[in-house]
């Protein structure tokens, strides 16, 4: 690009040069903004997610009765390694047939417990009641208890849950 500094400047030349300068600013600024935006908006779930954890031996379970199990879950919070504890209810139907529910009430997140006499899950906070298969029977919960994927491992002795 040759800019003569002596010749009188035509308005067209001025316009073209302005366009070029503003264009460079827009393109570099735009590219940098996109890059930094993507960088800052990085999805929080990068690792972990969906790993199988041991929830306990099959011998602890009673057919048809939900049994609470605390699972120690190493939670990857970005670069930070925390150890979270999650409670799941295991429902064993004999053999390799096992299901698991989250203990978190779908209303406002309190922890439900199993009432063995009433054979229901009771939420202590706002009176949510769930059936043994997780259906809502009474109270405010909008959805059934969340199911957690569960299976008996190859040896047939241990229940694994996916958290």
């Amino acid at each position, binding site marked *: 690009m040759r800019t003569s*500094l002596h010749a009188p400047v035509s308005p067209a030349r001025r316009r073209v*040069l302005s366009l*070029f300068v503003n264009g*460079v600013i827009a393109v*570099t600024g735009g590219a940098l903004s996109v890059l930094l935006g993507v*960088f800052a908006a990085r999805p929080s779930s990068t690792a972990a997610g969906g790993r199988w954890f041991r929830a306990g031996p099959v011998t602890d379970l009673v057919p048809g009765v939900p049994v609470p199990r605390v699972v120690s879950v190493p939670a*990857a919070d970005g670069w930070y390694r925390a150890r979270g504890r999650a409670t799941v209810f295991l429902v064993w139907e004999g053999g390799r047939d096992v299901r698991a529910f989250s203990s978190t009430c779908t209303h406002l997140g309190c922890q439900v417990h199993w009432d063995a006499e009433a054979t229901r899950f009771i939420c202590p906070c706002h009176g949510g009641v769930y059936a043994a298969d997780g259906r809502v029977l009474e109270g405010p919960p909008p959805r059934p208890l969340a199911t957690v994927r569960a299976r008996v*491992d190859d040896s047939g002795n241990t229940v694994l849950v996916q958290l």
Partner: protein
Amino acid sequence: MIERLGRWLDERTGYRRIRRALLEEPLPPGTGWAFTFGSILLALLLVQTLTGAFLTVYYAPTPDHAYDSVRFIIATTAGRVVRGLHYFGASFLIVFTVIHMMRVIVFGSYKAPREITWLSGLALLGLMLAFALTGYLLPWDQRAYWATVVTINISRLVPIAGDTSAALLQGGTSLGALTLTRWYALHVIFLPALLVALVVVHLALMRRPGISGPIRARAGAALPFYPFHAARDAAAIALVLLGLAALAWRGAPALDAPADPADATYVPRPEWYFLALFQLLKYFPGRLEILGAILLPALAGLALALLPWIDRGPGREPRRRLAVLSAVVAGLIAVVALTVLGWRDRPAGAAPRDGWSLLEIGGRAFVQSADCARCHADTGLADPLDRIGGARGVEWIEGHIADPEMIAPGLRDPPAPVREREAAAILAYVRRLSRESYPGHARRTRMAAAVYARHCVGCHVIDGEGGSDGPDLSSIGRTHDRPTLRRWIADPESVDPDAEMPSFARRLSAAELDAIASYLADRK
């Protein structure tokens, strides 16, 4: 419509006057490409500020997490590029600062009435180096850690205030958490504040008398900065940023292993722009060190600062300022030569970083015998080994294996105890594993590695790792054959009655003896 909005806004803010003042500076005729370096620097500073600000979104300035957080940053393409821009941007800033300075010197632009502008520019160069120095520690890898150890020790050489300045730089009793937060604060708060102030001063001083313009003033009318010179600036900036992006695309150089204060084998090397100083130190051993470390750089800085008063004549013509210019060029050549020498003078003892070291391979054997995979597995209680990264030290691993319940609640029965050397090897293996997956080795090599990592490493060096009480075994196979080595290891005194090495006949199985002897015999 837009015109009316603009007028409305202008009546309330007066922004048009500010914009005019900023953009319509009249530039003398003949102001050409040589005058684009200042704008390039401004653009680079903007990129550094933005990328730096965004890096703090993820970075954690603690010894426990700094390394992991940087690893987390570079785990995505965007993060890799952002860190790459910031990393190479630092080098670009240094390079273009020097070019900018050379332009000012050759054009004699520092002459009256611009002496203070020159001094503020020199202060900015110092600030750039301070940024580079403080930023270098933040990834908390071996390179960062040991380069900073050297920096702090150099500051001890400052006369009278040496110990005080080292204590100020270090913060705590040793290079650690207090140093890291201190350097982080400098890098992201104090130095940037100073930078903004100095840049404003530098630009205001530049604008006061206007730019110096071409060496020989030309006739003609002045042209406004925007869009005429701005177009040149924009083209130059676009070119430089493209170059920067091309380098940054593949990211900054890979992180070294996490900082390990106990690692006596690490040979620190500074970043390239400090190589000249690094090399200079080598020529001033012992008590003369202060000359190379403090005195010569200080004198060079002083000479630069005094340039406008040394080179006092009114003329800016380079031909009439040959003495000053040749002195500056000689200085520049000296710096470049020292940098090249420093670059080529790589330490011989450094371990080769391509192949897996025996310690790392040995660590894998211990990981298997200690049954780490029982918990460190995809379905286990703890993270798989390749995701751990090894930011912890040997003591932590020893403690963890001795009583995992303490450190990793939920694990009831501890595995077999592991000794310090095995812990060190496990650490080496886990750290290596965080960078690349295990390539696989022959069974014999694995067995030899385990023997080496458990028994030999205390006294013998192989590939730069190990103790120095016994001879270096890196190429022992050149002088000793397999049967001799086997006999020597089993019973040293049967080969050399004066041998100080203990006998290993009872401590190693026949298979282990065979493995280590043939491994060593193959080292040529």
